[in-house]
């Protein structure tokens, strides 16, 4: 689908990309990882036809620079940093749906699924929204149209656990599309991908397929038992949508499958408080498979 061949990019004397070769096929979900300055964003911008470069990039035979609209119609993009747009939310949706030949209703439906009520913010300038609201809107614009490649730069960074879970479910519905998910850290996106491309100083240092047994749309039922009630823990776990079922000593809730590593990372901060963790994969037939139990 995407063929990247010998791509190099130089800014003045600094070589940011150095002879990159990469093939991306339909259904590939790639974690594009690497530290700051590795060249991830530059590679994405080359793919979006925003930079001139040496070498060639084609999407089903079309070069993004020369066939901008044809190629970009097929790519949904969510940037890491939200653009400082002053236009009202409704206008942004109208503009985006207009140029993408999509319908605003489709984008609004995704907004609603992610928990963003556009009717409340439609007249507000985009740059006045909170970080999470901006992210939800940009995701809705990217997913609210027919694309076969999603380029997501730290897409879930500003989302609350509930919105992350819904976002993962939306991605699960798009398994046919190729995805490039850029992140500084592999553990943030590991559960979403089936391939890892690591970049360092403008070159690809790792290009490997990984086991993708985790269902992106899966949900884990979780029960936590504590030694003692703790207000800081309560505040944190409520953000994950958990409910207290015994005076702050027992908490129950759901965790999105791809978020399990991140969730355990949060729990590790309260390790001394935790007496027991029960994580059960909740399959859609209503049966519960025990996947992890620590007590």
């Amino acid at each position, binding site marked *: 689908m995407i063929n990247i061949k010998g791509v190099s990019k130089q800014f003045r004397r600094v070589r940011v990309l150095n002879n990159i070769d990469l093939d991306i096929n339909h259904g590939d979900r790639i974690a594009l990882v690497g530290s700051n300055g590795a060249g991830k964003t530059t590679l994405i911008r080359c793919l979006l036809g*925003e*930079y*001139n470069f040496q070498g060639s990039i084609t999407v089903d035979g079309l070069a993004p620079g020369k066939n901008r609209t*044809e*190629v970009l*119609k097929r790519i949904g993009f969510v940037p890491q940093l939200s*653009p400082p747009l002053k236009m009202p939310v409704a*206008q942004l949706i109208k503009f985006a749906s*207009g140029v993408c030949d999509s319908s605003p209703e489709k984008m609004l439906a995704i907004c609603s699924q992610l928990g963003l009520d556009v009717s409340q913010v439609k007249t507000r300038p985009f740059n006045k929204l909170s970080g999470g609201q901006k992210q939800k809107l*940009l995701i809705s614009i990217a997913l609210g149209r027919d694309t076969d490649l999603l380029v997501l730069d730290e897409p879930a960074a500003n989302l609350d656990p509930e919105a992350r879970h819904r976002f993962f479910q939306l991605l699960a519905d798009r398994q046919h599309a190729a995805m490039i998910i850029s992140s500084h850290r592999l553990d943030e996106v590991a559960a979403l991908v089936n391939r890892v491309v690591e970049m360092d100083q403008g070159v690809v240092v790792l290009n490997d397929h990984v086991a993708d047994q985790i269902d992106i749309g899966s949900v884990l039922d979780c029960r936590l038992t504590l030694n003692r009630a703790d207000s800081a823990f309560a505040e944190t776990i409520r953000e994950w949508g958990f409910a207290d079922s015994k005076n702050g000593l027992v908490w129950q809730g759901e965790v999105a499958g791809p978020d399990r590593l991140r969730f355990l990372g949060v729990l590790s901060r309260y390790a001394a408080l935790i007496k027991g963790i029960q994580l059960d994969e909740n399959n859609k037939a209503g049966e519960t498979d025990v996947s992890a139990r620590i007590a």
Partner: protein
Amino acid sequence: MKHLLLAAKTDISESLRSRWFMIYTLVFGGIIVALFMSGLTESRVMGFSGLSRLLVTYLQITMAILPVFVLITTVRSVAGDREAGVFEYMLSLPVSLFAWFWGKMLGRFVVVFLPVFLAMFAAVFWGLGREVQIPWPQVFYYTGFLLSLAWCFLGIGMLVSTLARTSDVATGIAFIIWLLLLLFMDLILLGLLIRQGLPSETVIAFALFNPMQVFRTAAMMLFDPQLVLLGQSAYVILDNFGKTGYIIWALLYPIGLGTVCAWAGYHIFKRGDLP
């Protein structure tokens, strides 16, 4: 076409919400109000009276203010968006660069031309209400000149905007361009050049290719065929050009210059790195 109109509409909405537009509209609306309040229409100086005199004065003031306003607000357009990081996202959407650039230009043109045009027509409507004789041919010529001048400086502004990497540099360049054009007008440098015995062809060339001078001369020519109010260069131009020829030149040359500049800007924009 749909994308071009969407880009134009977006730019118009963006401009209507901005502070510069409010100031811009207030300035031109304020000029007209101030001219009415100063009793200009009641006075008679050098044969000008009523609405004709008001329009002459309005046009002279516009000539000085419009270019600098248009330049400074336009140059921040492309350079400012690039600097702020708007391009990375907006140009990842499937909008053609042609539609984006020319849509911006079109939208900006509507925004800069309308307040000036409406202020002038407010004066005309006032005149109609007071049953003052309206100099219609002049009103139409002036509309044409304003359109031509606005397009010209918009084109120059878009070129500067694509050349400069930051909006501060773009603003600096815009200001220098305006200052240079202002200096090379008949009242200042051209008069000096003639006095120092420069060949008349050189002086004519300076005056013919300076859009501000072209606008000024043409505007005055409609009311002052003897060019009493103009500097020496205008005499030379008239001798060589003729009245009709000069008015046609004054309408077409700035539009051509603006279009060439904008076209060059578009090609630079298209060929360079976008964000």
